[in-house]
């Protein structure tokens, strides 16, 4: 894990350097679209009350100066499928955003949606030698968490300390300077497939960009679309994307669980295409313009022309009713929600004090989805839009941009991760000069 520690620290330094230069790019590489935002940090920290964007969650010290979105290419289930294609799509998005912003973007923060994420809750405990928690002890307790075998080729994407306990006082957010004899911590670790993340890093490198941070898309979507109270009291965020559906559970402003269902909007389109025997592009149009969940009597009479270019007049001039489309879509959406339900059950969401569920992502725009979700997931369901941030154009504020906005918040205020603390001295290789230096610094 030392290797990962070094790379993550390097990314943190890169982020700091980018903040100092004032410009940082946000790259949300999804399965259906790639969004690129260019953020400018003016460093003033003063909030500008601009068209209803208040200083709510620390989004006040930056503004979006360039944004672009393009169709994703070469992506499949949130992972890179054809590297060259994806690279071209990233280049398109970055070039367009740069052109709007008028500045060159060197550092980007990206998110990974797929890669089979797995959540682990780790616990660690140490005794306190000085009877008081020091910075050094916090690092030690984080390092003392017993890591299970993540499996071969897994990389840690997030390792966030969620809870600290000193003796029997639990639920501490910041244990420093507390006196006690024993310090325990809970850490949430999210691992992803190492190859998936490696491919993403490589793809970004090939676009001449430096990676200044990487986050899970579910985490980013949760940060953008859950309001502060929901993050504090506990809520689940369901990010209905194109290639899959991200699930993340937040409580006390920390993510405690994240998962990924490999059924998404593209599969719905595919169902329509197969079920109604229309081309994929037509199916996509049917889904976006005429899709729905609940069929009514009026929908039977609502006939939609489907065009095609097969050359067969009979099949090209067909028309389908809206209830046909709904009839194809509904089982697949139900399946997605059932899968999400299973993941939430597996995570023990039932035992959380608050049962709030927020639907976001492009799929949450299906009319009537909240009704169906209420039946499957639980009573407290709402459709969430991302937090308003300064300078973002209005057409980029719909729910499908919640992970991009979440990444912007992540760039501005990253939560503490394990690698933000100094590595304890005994983790350094033996006979290292830095180890000696650290020992001296901690003991005198």
């Amino acid at each position, binding site marked *: 894990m030392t290797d990962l520690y070094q790379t993550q620290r390097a990314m943190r330094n890169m982020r700091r350097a980018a903040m100092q230069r004032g410009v940082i790019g946000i790259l949300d590489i999804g399965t259906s679209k790639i969004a690129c935002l260019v953020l400018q940090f003016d460093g003033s920290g003063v909030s500008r009350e601009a068209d209803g964007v208040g200083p709510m969650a620390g989004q006040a010290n930056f503004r979006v100066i360039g944004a672009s979105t*393009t169709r994703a290419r070469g992506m499949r289930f949130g992972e890179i499928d054809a590297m060259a294609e994806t690279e*071209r*799509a990233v*280049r*398109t998005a*970055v*070039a367009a955003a*740069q*052109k709007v912003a*008028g*500045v*060159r973007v060197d550092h980007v923060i990206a998110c990974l949606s797929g890669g089979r994420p797995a959540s682990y809750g780790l616990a660690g405990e140490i005794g306190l030698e000085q009877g008081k928690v020091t910075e050094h002890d916090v690092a030690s307790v984080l390092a003392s968490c017993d890591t299970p075998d993540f499996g071969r080729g897994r990389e840690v994407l997030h390792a966030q300390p969620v809870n600290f306990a000193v003796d029997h006082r639990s639920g501490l957010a910041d244990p420093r300077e507390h006196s006690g004899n024993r310090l325990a911590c809970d850490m949430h670790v999210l691992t992803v497939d190492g190859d998936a993340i490696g491919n993403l890093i490589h793809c970004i490198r090939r*676009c*001449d960009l430096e990676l200044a941070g990487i986050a899970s898309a579910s985490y980013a979507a949760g940060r953008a679309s859950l309001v502060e109270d929901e993050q504090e009291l506990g809520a689940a965020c369901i990010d209905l994307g194109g290639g899959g559906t991200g699930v993340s559970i937040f409580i006390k402003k920390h993510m405690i669980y994240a998962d990924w269902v490999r059924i998404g909007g593209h599969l719905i389109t595919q169902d329509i295409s197969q079920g109604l025997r229309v081309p994929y592009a037509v199916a996509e149009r049917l889904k976006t313009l005429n899709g729905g969940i609940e069929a009514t009597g009026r929908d039977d009479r609502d006939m939609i022309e489907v065009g095609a270019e097969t050359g067969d007049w009979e099949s090209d001039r067909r028309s389908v009713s809206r209830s046909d489309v709904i009839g194809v879509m509904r089982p697949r959406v139900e399946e997605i929600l059932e899968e999400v339900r299973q993941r939430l059950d597996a995570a023990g969401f039932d035992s959380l004090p608050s049962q709030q569920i927020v639907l976001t992502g492009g799929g949450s725009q299906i009319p009537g989805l909240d009704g169906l979700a209420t039946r499957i997931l639980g009573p407290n369901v709402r459709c969430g839009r991302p937090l308003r941030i300064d300078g973002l154009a209005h057409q980029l504020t719909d729910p499908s941009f919640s992970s991009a906005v979440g990444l912007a918040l992540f760039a501005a205020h990253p939560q503490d991760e394990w690698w933000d603390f100094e590595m304890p001295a005994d983790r350094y290789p033996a006979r290292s000069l830095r180890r000696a230096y650290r020992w001296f610094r901690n003991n005198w």
Partner: protein
Amino acid sequence: MASLTDHRGTPPKRKRDPAPSRLAYRLERMWLTPLYRRVLRVGVPAFLLAMSVGIWMSDEDRRAMLHEGIAGLVDKVQSREEFQVKMMTIEGASPAVDKALRSMLPVDLPASSFDIDLTALRLQVMALDAVEKIELRIKPGGILSAVVTERQPAVLWRHARGIEMLDKNGHRVAGVTSREMRPDLPIITGDGADQVTAEALALIDAAGPVLPRLRGLQRQGERRWDVVLDHGQRILLPEVDALRALEHAIELQRSDDLLGRDISVIDLRDPARPVVRMGVDARNTIRGARGLPLLGPDGQVLANDG
């Protein structure tokens, strides 16, 4: 049969890839780098311009050609009909000044108005003593108009080198060869008399009743005036308040006919104590009445021989 199967004619066009090529992407990013941007937008054009101008100008013939061209162009514009000055009108000048003014014009008319430096010409004309003020301008229609105000001579000043006419401020107007040329002007003499012409004129104005007998004013030691009358009479005025002293003398003359008597000098230098120097006849009359020996015309006591 190929024409039958390929009934659509041209194969379907491939859609253009919207993604920028790797080269275009890199160039775009380079272009967005501030330094490159500045160099390419300002530095390179400036350098190219400077270099091409430098190379072109490095040849002697071309430089001469450029100079000639510019000079020719300037000349062409300046010698246009609209800028030509054809004649000069002079108002308010005596014939002598008129002649001098015409001879001072640096160019022969008609000439371009760009060749006539009005400021320099004005300064040159102002150096003439006879000219007090001149207004020079070029009127539409190509007329150089000069409105001259000449100095009016107010007094003649006789000094060691001759006689000059002065205006009321003491500025020289012209020299005259003799007093008879301007009998209408009063005369003043003495060193430094031209410095206080105004006071002299005031004294002459105040002379009133004695004006017919006034021959002139004499400046004494560059500090005070003597009023010189005919029959060798003088009135010595003080340094300060000379005018009041003269009025005092005129008052004495009016009440006592002082100047009608045999008095050579009225000394008013001390205003509190006017002193009168009598003439020889008067003194002899007094001496004769007292039985004293008479005086000769030189002021010496005559030998009492009869």
